[in-house]
């Protein structure tokens, strides 16, 4: 049941194509000044939104490199989200998934975008209810650490959470970061993690485990004999998470 003629539909496509590419297209019954305004305005919407979402990337790249990237994205990628604030995520995936020349010069570019996006994502992700009863300040032997669910646990190849970008890219390696937002102010925080604690958090996300059980698992996995010592480390690790509100308290084991 099509009501729109191909002719009109084509006019509409041509106007958006012109906005996206900037390649002049002389549409019937239009004026040049107005057409240029649409190109300028729509490009600015993309450019400004991406500059705000990716301030570190924008500052790091030359202006011409940045503009080429934004232009490539605007003309080459079909944005799927109706929510403008989510559009920068598509920019990151566009850079990640496409064979862009700029990635040869800056191999860390996708990761930098990912890192900047994560901060937005953790800041804005939808609230996650904590239904379970938990104990906000005391720990018991039969209780399990309750991690703040509004977090992401990621692995990076550069210490972008520890150093300014120019330094970070000189220290490639294996870094683990817990990114979470505090429940009071909604601010985003980063915690650098050792591989042992990443293992602990991953286990906890899969099942309810007491600190005792976690210590035993770590001892087996990493071949460490002294489970008591691990338990002590774990306790101080969770205390630290608790202070920073990356952990909300303890809950009873189901």
């Amino acid at each position, binding site marked *: 049941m099509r*009501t*729109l*003629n191909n002719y*009109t*539909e084509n*006019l*509409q*496509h041509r*106007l*958006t194509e012109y*906005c*996206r590419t900037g390649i002049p297209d002389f*549409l*019937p*019954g*239009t*004026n040049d*000044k*107005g*057409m240029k*305004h*649409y190109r300028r*305005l*729509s490009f600015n*919407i*993309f450019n400004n*939104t991406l500059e705000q979402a990716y301030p570190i990337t924008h500052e790091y790249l030359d202006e011409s490199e940045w503009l080429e990237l934004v232009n490539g994205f*605007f003309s080459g*990628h*079909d*944005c*799927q*989200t*109706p*929510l*403008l*604030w*989510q*559009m920068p995520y598509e920019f990151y995936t566009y850079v990640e998934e496409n064979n862009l020349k700029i990635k040869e010069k800056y191999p860390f570019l996708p990761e930098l975008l990912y890192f900047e996006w994560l901060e937005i994502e953790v*800041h*804005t*992700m*939808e*609230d*996650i209810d904590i239904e379970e009863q938990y104990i906000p300040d005391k720990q018991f032997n039969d209780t399990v650490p309750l991690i703040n669910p*509004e977090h992401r646990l990621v692995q990076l190849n550069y210490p972008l959470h520890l150093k300014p970008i120019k330094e970070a890219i000189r220290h490639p390696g294996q870094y683990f970061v817990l990114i979470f*937002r505090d429940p009071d*102010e*909604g*601010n985003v925080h980063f915690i650098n993690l050792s591989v042992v604690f990443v293992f602990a958090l991953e286990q906890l996300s899969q099942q309810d485990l007491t600190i005792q059980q976690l210590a035993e698992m770590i001892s087996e996995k990493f071949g460490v004999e002294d489970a008591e010592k691990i338990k002590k480390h774990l306790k101080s690790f969770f205390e630290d998470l608790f202070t920073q509100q990356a952990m909300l308290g303890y809950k009873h084991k189901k």
Partner: protein
Amino acid sequence: MNTKVGIGLRREFVDELAQQQQLHPDFIELAPENWMKMGGYWKKKLRQVTEKYPVTSHGLSLSLGSPENLDYDFIKDLKKFLDENDVQIFSEHLSYTKTNNAHIYDLLPIPFREDAVKHVASRIREAQELLGRKIAIENVSYYTPVDAEMDEADFLTNIAEEADCNILLDVNNVYVNAFNHNYDARKFISRLPLEKVAYIHMAGHEQVDSDLIIDTHSEAIIDPVYRLFEYTVNRMPEVPVLLERDFNFPELNELQQEMNNLRNITEKAWRKENANAK
């Protein structure tokens, strides 16, 4: 929600609205797309404001003028948002922001053509059905026509009648379009089915050239637009009026003063006794 004057919610003054110190709107308008699917800090802020004021919503991405099908997943999310926030009036732009399954987030002008009237009206009907409410379609500022078969007044009127929807009359946009395209703003307004107007927008703009005004929402309302507003409200029944200010924010008391000006004009026209403007 009659003879009410509201303001468009901006993150820049969300705290002020929550604390009710200098701004005293009767309602607030928000763009659903700027708040949907968000938790955390901004969700809390939104709740603080929506607890205090009635809410209207002005959509951005429904793209009523697109050639393609409506985005049904988006409409579902949008309906949820409108229901959750008890939105009293939902409006959208008579324009398109998407073709060939790609959003460009800018309000593009639909060609004023016969087939577009039929097409857009049927999309509005469908969207109204899915959203379970009427949509007020807004006359947008446009900077070029595209192979038009009729003028803007006929295009808007025909669609509103065929879609059985309401109109959001943006008086500043009428002024801007009349200036940019050389027509008489008052004649334009008198040709519209004013009984369908459910909501009015007022804003400032920026003249960038001797023959070009851009609808920026970055300046105070100018006198000729106030006069056009007065002309309009004298010819139609009472509806809520919204002040849009999106950039270049002045002192908040200046925004309150603009709302007071609008309230005074409407009260004279609609003869209300409660002239207790703050």
